[in-house]
């Protein structure tokens, strides 16, 4: 008998994620490796070059945020 897949997950905030609301669409696989929004990606790469971003991620990895 095929194992029944998990249907939902509740996160610590109480948010409920329904897995059955998400379906694989093979037609979308054509986007594998394709960047649909190159300008936004370029902008994002610039934004995270700021020194404060590295410090923030370092602090995050050190567990400084609750």
């Amino acid at each position, binding site marked *: 008998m095929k194992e029944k897949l998990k249907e939902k*997950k509740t*996160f*610590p*905030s*109480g*948010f*409920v*994620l*329904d*897995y059955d*609301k*998400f*379906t*694989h*669409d*093979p037609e*979308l*696989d*054509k*986007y*594998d*490796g394709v*960047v*649909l*929004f190159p300008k*936004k*990606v370029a*902008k*994002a*790469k610039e*934004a*995270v070059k*700021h020194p*404060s*971003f590295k*410090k*923030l*991620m370092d602090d*995050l*990895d*050190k*567990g400084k*945020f609750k």
Partner: protein
Amino acid sequence: MRLEHYEVRFDEPFTTFKFFSEGPKGRIQKLVQFSPISAGLYNLALGDVNAQTGEVDDLVVSDNGDSEKVLATVVEVVYRFCDRFPAASIYATGSTPARTRLYRMGINKYYHLATGDFYVFGQRLDSEWEPFQKGKDYRAFIVTQKGFRFGI
């Protein structure tokens, strides 16, 4: 808590998601894509697919009367993506200042969810990054699921 949202389809690398906005302007196909910026960091972008040309446009204003449901669907997609890639950090900004404000309003609206499950950071208008503060103006945002980054 459940949000009213559209059903979502995804590709197999699990980086591109599709749903249809439904409203007075008809049925509009929307795509959400997560693109890698650096190790573990992804850019989130949302755009409409032009029904005539098939091109994806992140500047078009759909005005389909369902912005709340679209926003809720993007929230669902973020949760689903982070469920698959729990250590991922997600960067998001609007294509225009008005859209960035909309994202900020969205984070404020779902603040209890956002801060319950994610660390939320904002890039101030002077480009400095800091922990997100409600009501403050930011040019971009980053969320990281709590409990999954190295060292936490």
